[in-house]
């Protein structure tokens, strides 16, 4: 709507006895076009129409190229993406920082010595024929060069999938997607409250896989579900479907209205992995991820928010695997014991836009060396000397305290956190401090 028209429509009541005039967008005029009762609200960058209350809203609306619910073919085409940068410092008796991370073979993602490009993605999302959605993103190579030195910002396909969504209770999707086992993995990195997810959630995470899945919510008002089957290989583009299967099933219940909370969802996740530990051959431009070394995994989750307070609680169990797995073309023995973990993430808004976040993790494995310290930063503690650190153990405990500052909701925010971790039966005992800026659209 034109701003002047909006102002014109807001009429102030001034008299006790007189009626209260109202801009209803309705009583005498339609929403957009006063010459017609029909409401049309096409917006987007291509039309030069940027809806929103504030300059921030209008700026972000520019990522919507076209939006028009009245168009019979295309209802929306928007750009989507994220850039998340961060810097770390750790100490477990031996200090480590982002430059050590760079030196450990990550020079392509570290700008200078201190700023890591944690995630850089770019893509689109679109809605067609009212019930079809197509969206996808690539991981962007921030170095912008491939292994041969040629210019190439493309790193890999993060996701690309087609969804048929005739009703809320039934959506069918095919393509490549992040397989969201556990509550922490369900929450996008755009919206997670801690800078990094918890150890066991990452350990059980199967990656971005190709497959088909159905999901729905609002079944008998409160129930939700998801069931998916995927090729087990974590590859640059799409699965060959020759390397095992991952099956994920979820059932959840939204009990917010029964208890009077803002949100309250409890859910049970189950995942089966037919080829634990599998890793595809590495190529010059892409290092494939490893399939989790667990045959089956279970997550029992509870997520509630009320006013300033939030609490995510998760109990995870992974059934270990003893056997051989193909890793980069070689058969290797794997001995992974069962693990159990509890993760509790409370949060509280302490001031306008300022949120305090905590996290407690406790994990235990059946046998020694069943748990490995987080691979991203804590394992750097043995660098550069490579001394005598033992990165594996049988118990793990960590406590995280963070402060998030929201500049424009989750779309632009600063995140800071410090985490103390102790590996029982191993050598790691130290802390990691992290700071980051997250931008998304």
């Amino acid at each position, binding site marked *: 709507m034109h701003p002047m028209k909006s102002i014109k429509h807001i009429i102030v009541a001034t008299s006790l006895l007189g009626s209260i005039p109202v801009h209803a967008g309705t009583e005498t005029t339609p*929403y957009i076009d006063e010459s017609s009762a029909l409401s049309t609200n096409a917006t987007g960058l291509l039309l030069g129409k940027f809806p929103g209350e504030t300059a921030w809203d209008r700026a972000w609306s520019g990522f919507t190229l076209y939006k028009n619910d009245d168009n019979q073919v295309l209802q929306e085409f928007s750009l989507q993406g994220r850039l998340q940068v961060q810097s770390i410092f750790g100490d477990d008796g031996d200090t480590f920082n982002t430059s050590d991370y760079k030196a450990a073979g990550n020079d392509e993602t570290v700008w200078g010595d201190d700023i890591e490009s944690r995630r850089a993605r770019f893509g689109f999302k679109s809605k067609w024929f009212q019930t079809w959605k197509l969206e996808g993103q690539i991981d962007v190579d921030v170095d912008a060069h491939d292994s041969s030195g040629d210019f190439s910002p493309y790193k890999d396909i993060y996701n690309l999938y087609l969804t048929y969504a005739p009703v809320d209770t039934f959506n069918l999707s095919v393509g490549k997607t992040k397989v969201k086992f556990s509550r922490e993995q369900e929450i996008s990195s755009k919206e997670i409250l801690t800078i990094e997810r918890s150890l066991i959630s990452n350990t059980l995470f199967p990656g971005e896989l190709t497959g088909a899945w159905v999901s729905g919510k609002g079944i008998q008002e409160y129930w939700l579900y998801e069931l998916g089957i995927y090729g087990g290989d974590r590859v640059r583009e799409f699965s060959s479907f020759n390397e095992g299967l991952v099956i994920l099933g979820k059932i959840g219940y939204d009990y917010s209205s029964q208890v009077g909370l803002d949100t309250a969802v409890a859910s049970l996740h189950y995942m089966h992995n037919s080829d634990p530990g599998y890793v595809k051959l590495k190529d010059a431009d892409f290092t494939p991820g490893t399939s989790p070394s667990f045959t089956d995994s279970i997550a029992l989750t509870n997520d509630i928010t009320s006013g300033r307070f939030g609490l995510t609680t998760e109990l995870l169990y992974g059934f270990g695997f003893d056997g051989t797995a193909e890793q980069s073309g070689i058969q290797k023995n794997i001995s992974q014991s069962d693990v159990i973990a509890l993760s509790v993430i409370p949060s509280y808004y302490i001031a306008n836009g300022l949120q305090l976040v905590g996290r407690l993790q406790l994990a235990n494995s059946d046998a020694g060396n069943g748990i490995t310290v987080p691979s991203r930063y804590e394992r750097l503690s043995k660098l550069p000397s490579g001394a005598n650190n033992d990165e594996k153990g049988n118990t793990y405990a960590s406590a995280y305290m963070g402060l998030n500052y929201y500049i424009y909701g989750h779309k632009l925010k600063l995140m800071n956190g410090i985490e103390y971790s102790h590996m029982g039966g191993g050598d790691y005992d130290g802390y990691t401090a992290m700071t980051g800026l997250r931008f998304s659209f």
Partner: protein
Amino acid sequence: MKTFITLFTAAATLSVASAQTLSIKGSDTLGAKLVPQLAEGFKAAGNKGVKFEIAAEGSTTAFPALANGTAQIGMSSRKVKDDERTFCKTKGVFIKEHGICYDMLTVIVNKNSPLAKLSKAEVAKIFTGQIKDWSEIGGAPGKISVYTRNTSSGTYKDWQKLAMGGRDYPSSSLKMAGNEQIAQEVAKNKNGIGYVGLAYSKTTGTKTLVIDGVEPIAANAKKYTYARLCYLYAPDKPSAEADAFMKYVESSAGQDIVRKVGFIPVADL
């Protein structure tokens, strides 16, 4: 002269202080009739100094306005979505939900239509485009014109959920800005059908249909299939004016106005 300036300044300050403005934004269903009349009642109840700014452009507009502080109260004919509430929180606004009344969504056709009743299944088929001609359900031949609310409306989504099994509207549906536009267009179009809140069901030139044998009148609210709760949202620490207005809305005097305008007080169900 000095005394005059002092008195003038004091008078101006007092007049500004005594004219507090209460900005309310959101749902057309609530904002076109009900909330303005509640505002009148509130002022008549001894709150003459409060000025109201009421902008009713759809439930979707309520939450950005609350988040940005351009509204002190949001009107919504649907529950707030998780992402809307989260955005408010990140801006330091912790909204509280107040269910203030029930609304019955009535199905209206042109007064000259021979139809008097429909089943819930027939309503779903008409509004999803599966039934395209009145002759398919025993009416006079004629292509059905489906009138709906626009996508910023909470009623648009509620109707999908209540009457259409969550399915989408046909691309041929005509999206209107408010209840009154739907009623006016149906009154002009002998092949028209639409849905409006109970408060708008008496528009000249239209008639309401009995659904699954239940007439859409307030007395039947419990058994009528298309009834929904409507809400006001206010920050957990509202301004004094907003707090007083919310209390008035929920008082017996406020709920009497709810009933008079054609909505159903919460306590009645």
